[in-house]
């Protein structure tokens, strides 16, 4: 599946829910299944700033795609990360760089998208894209 298709899939999945509670419960479920970052990589340089909860994000290049692992101490944040990683992990750098994030609005999590939101969703996306940029530069050398 390409990135667009994954986004569509997520929108489909979330469209089954009638209210925010079901949506959040599903997000929390997704959070529990998050491919965890290893403990030794939970170092301060992996921490994303601007979050009320702690968020660690780690990235690795596998051939020409980037695989992300991450964790948080808050479960809702973990759920958000899980959604982001499903979309962005194992994609090529340029795909990540060009991806837009309207799907977050469409799955009913718009409230998390404000740049001033203390969950740092916006910082997270920024960080994902920064990694993509770094690896792209590396690949183009």
């Amino acid at each position, binding site marked *: 599946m390409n990135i667009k298709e994954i986004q569509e899939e997520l929108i489909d999945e979330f469209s089954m829910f009638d209210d*925010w*509670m079901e949506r*959040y*419960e599903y997000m*929390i479920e997704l959070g529990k299944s998050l491919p965890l970052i290893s403990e030794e990589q939970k170092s301060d340089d992996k921490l994303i700033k601007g979050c*009320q*909860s*702690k968020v660690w994000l780690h990235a690795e290049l596998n051939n020409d795609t980037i695989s992300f692992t991450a964790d948080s*101490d*808050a*479960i*809702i*944040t973990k759920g958000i990360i899980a959604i982001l990683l499903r979309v962005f992990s194992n994609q090529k750098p340029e795909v990540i760089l060009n991806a837009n994030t309207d799907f977050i609005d469409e799955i009913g999590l718009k409230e998390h998208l404000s740049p001033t939101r*203390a*969950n740092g969703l916006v910082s997270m996306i920024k960080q994902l894209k920064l990694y993509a940029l770094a690896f792209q530069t590396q690949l183009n050398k």
Partner: protein
Amino acid sequence: MFDINIIRKDFPILNREVNGKPLVYLDNAATSQKPQIVIDSIVDYYSTYNANIHRGVHTLSQEATDVFEIARKKVQKHFNIKESKEVILTSGTTHSINIVANGYAEILQKGDEVIVSAMEHHSNIVPWQMLCERTGAVLKVIPMNSEGELILSEYEKLLSEKTKLVFVNHVSNALGTINPIEIIIEKAHEVNAAVLVDGAQACSHIKVDVQKIDVDYYVTSAHKMCGPTGVGMLYGKKELLNELQPYQGGGEMIKEVTFEKTTYADLPHKFEAGTPNISGGIAFGVAIDYLNEIGFDEIANYENELIAYATQQLLEIEGLKIYGTSQYKTSVISFNIEGIHPYDIGTIVDKLGIAVRTGHHCAQPIMEFYKIPGTVRASFSFYNTKEEVDVLVNAVKKAKMMLQ
């Protein structure tokens, strides 16, 4: 008579819905809501007599000056301050504390000691750290116990001839503890140290008599007392304020300016450089009147009942732990549920229309003391109700179910 239904009608925002639910506003320690009469006073100012104050000869300026100075007198009276020139109108608690901290830069000597409590808001820590860096004074900390109470025997050990200043909050914003400021002041005075009390959290619950408690400096913010943002108070004893160097330079705070030499104005103007928050000062006065009309005894009675009820209800939730369990408390309940991050609880209860605060509440040392990332803080005001407490308790239960 205290009639909650009438009181709630004074606050337009309480009609509002959040996420489809009636707003339950329990973030009063961050900022209070404003009654219509306070909002109206701002509208009235801008619509009928807005002008820059002091020194203006024209009628509008005269009217604005008079009302602004009446507001100062209201503040004076409310806190039982001896002279109106001891009332400095600032832009808030943080500004007030910084004025005093900066004032001591020329007074403190290397090796002098200043004492802070373990449960201060960052606004009552950082300015003093900056002062210590500038002067070489040493910062000492009054420790607290696990109930969230200051250990006074330790405080006494810290006091010595070297102590020049003690600063402590009246009520802790993160724990709700009411500190024994009378004793703290008395002990400090025995070694001739001055005491600054940060009343930001106290003033909406407790009516303070600065002369009675003999405090040297007392500071607060209007926005926590049903008043507007951007205005606050610094009270200081005249003899002390006169000794402090001014903080901001500018208009209003001078007597005479030449390029060679500038002389400063008398109190309070020496510390009120520039155009002040005129509408804010005026509305601050109106807010004080409003609170006094309700009555601080009535407010305290009502709030104490409310917080007792909320404490009892919340503690019935398994795994819920309250931080700050002193018997001397005002309307703050800080808590966590085992295994759940405060941010998660805050997010879920918000979906149910409830505004609580989560995080470190600008008091990181307290979080470090308890070794927690933060708490969920429900903070109450006299316009909250038992029904709202029930909504909160049910919401927390629901959040717990979803999150565990």
